[in-house]
């Protein structure tokens, strides 16, 4: 296809710049079977986010979840657990993945319209515990049951997700000269950050670029190290108006930009009009415009990184470098938190921190902007999260307040 041809569109999220703040963050990360179900993990993350914010359980009057996957915590379950009686506004437009970026826009509208004033966004999965069981709703099952994929992709062995992204990576390598070493730089960066992060699942396992290159291919050209972990875990963050946030415990972190973008060529990876790009091409410019910022203003970037190639494409598509320029941009230690380049996935990302599908990516940005991160970027004032689900991408820009 002609790369100049429009293959996607920006979403219609309205300007919410400066309206809401993230005032509390909490994670519940488990390397192996947690012995808890998804709802219990969601509650644990919620308790930590509440403690972080200084809000009481009875202060929460809005909960956002995703109805599509992972654990739900509805109003009744919340009140039952915390022994509270408040009215709670519920939204299905929250959770992780792309929604971890767009939930603040929905929350801003709810706060403006008086539906809620302190809104919890949460996500949790117990996919490690479920692995191999009949109830396994792990990451492959959803795709394997999609009817066209089942009919025209599974017979050919084009399944599950590592195969999609190996095929994308090969084409990207052919098209732009991307090298194994570039994918390796992302994996090594994530691992080094995880080694410095107390919650990270791979905190005790180091990875050098030489070790990466010596590892066997899982789905050529991807190695195991290019693929996300499977784990139990959850994350939650709490939003209020900026005004209210000023009176709360932690330094102010303000939502300055929110956007989403969509591919026009449907939900199948195999049929994407632009196979080697993400819809960040259509999402990111809008968030930057809303925030009145440009990519070079960003101090810390977290990207939904189910596979190294997904992060590499988003770096290009969000405008941190030109398309095809990621090879140079990500090389060596450029993305490490203490290098002069752009600090990337400073908690370790899905590759090395935990597989909680992006909600911890937002929490990490908040901690960086407060100055309380494990791998603290010096003078971090602007942070960005990029969410991705194939035909959708989203962008969240946060800024430390004054």
């Amino acid at each position, binding site marked *: 296809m002609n790369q100049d041809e429009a293959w996607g569109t920006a979403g219609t999220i309205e300007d919410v710049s400066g309206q809401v703040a993230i005032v509390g963050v909490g994670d519940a990360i488990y390397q192996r079977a947690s012995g808890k179900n998804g709802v219990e993990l969601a509650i644990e993350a919620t308790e930590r986010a509440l403690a972080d914010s200084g809000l009481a359980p009875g202060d929460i009057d809005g909960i956002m979840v995703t109805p599509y996957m992972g654990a739900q915590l509805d109003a009744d379950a919340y009140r039952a657990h915390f022994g509270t009686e408040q009215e709670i506004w519920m939204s299905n437009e929250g959770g992780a993945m792309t929604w971890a970026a767009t939930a603040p826009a929905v929350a801003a509208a709810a706060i403006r319209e008086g539906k809620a004033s302190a809104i919890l966004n949460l996500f949790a999965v117990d996919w490690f515990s479920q692995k191999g069981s009949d109830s*396994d709703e792990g990451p492959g099952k959803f795709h394997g049951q999609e009817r066209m994929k089942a009919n025209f992709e599974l017979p*050919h062995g084009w399944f599950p997700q590592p195969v999609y992204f*190996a*095929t994308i990576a*090969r084409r990207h390598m*052919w098209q732009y000269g991307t090298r194994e070493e570039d994918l390796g730089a992302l994996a090594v960066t994530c691992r080094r950050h995880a080694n410095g992060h107390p919650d990270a699942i791979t905190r005790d396992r180091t990875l050098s670029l030489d070790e990466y290159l010596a590892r066997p291919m899982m*789905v050529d050209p991807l190695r195991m190290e290019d693929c996300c972990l499977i784990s139990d875990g959850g994350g939650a963050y709490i939003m209020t108006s900026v005004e209210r946030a000023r009176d709360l415990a932690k330094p102010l972190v303000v939502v300055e930009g929110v956007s989403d973008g969509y591919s026009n060529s449907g939900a199948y990876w195999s*049929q994407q009009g632009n*196979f080697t790009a993400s819809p960040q091409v259509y999402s990111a410019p809008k968030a930057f415009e809303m925030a009145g910022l440009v990519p070079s203003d960003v101090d810390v970037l977290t990207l939904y990184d189910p596979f190294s190639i997904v992060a590499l494409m988003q770096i290009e598509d969000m405008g941190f470098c030109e398309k095809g320029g990621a090879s140079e941009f990500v090389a060596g230690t450029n993305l490490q938190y203490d290098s002069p380049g752009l600090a990337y996935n400073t908690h370790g990302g899905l590759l090395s921190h935990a597989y909680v599908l992006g909600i911890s990516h937002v929490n990490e940005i908040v901690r960086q902007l407060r100055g309380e991160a494990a791998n603290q970027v010096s003078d971090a004032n602007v942070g960005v999260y990029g969410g991705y689900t194939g035909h959708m991408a989203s962008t969240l820009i946060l800024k430390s307040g004054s």
Partner: protein
Amino acid sequence: MSQAPLPETDWDLTRPFWQAAKESEFVMPRCAGCERYVWYPEEQCPHCGAGDVLWVQVEGRGLLFSWAEVRHPLHPPYKNQLPYITGIVALEVDPRVHYVTRIVECTTSELAIEMPMEVVYRELSFHEVEGAVVAPVFRPVA
């Protein structure tokens, strides 16, 4: 629990494809109105929204769009096939049609993106899965 990777050969939307494959024919759904191919098949043409979608026989040729070699047992039914090559061929009749396919009768060292490929028909069967299906798959043009 594993998803069996055999197609539904009795689904109205896809039956003509698998019936043709059994006769060593490669067919694609095309809109009778705007004449664009509709892949994956849909009852209504998503391009013009008007025409009937009809299956037409097409040349089983194309260019290798991309590929991957699966070396690790990610899905139990593929276990007896490792390593195998799978990928996408952009069809000659319309390169916007991306046909996901096994890539057979070659090693990875013989493959290059954009090389010409041709269809062959092979029976596919899977580890601990009953039954088999004849599918159009692709190999490099000799």
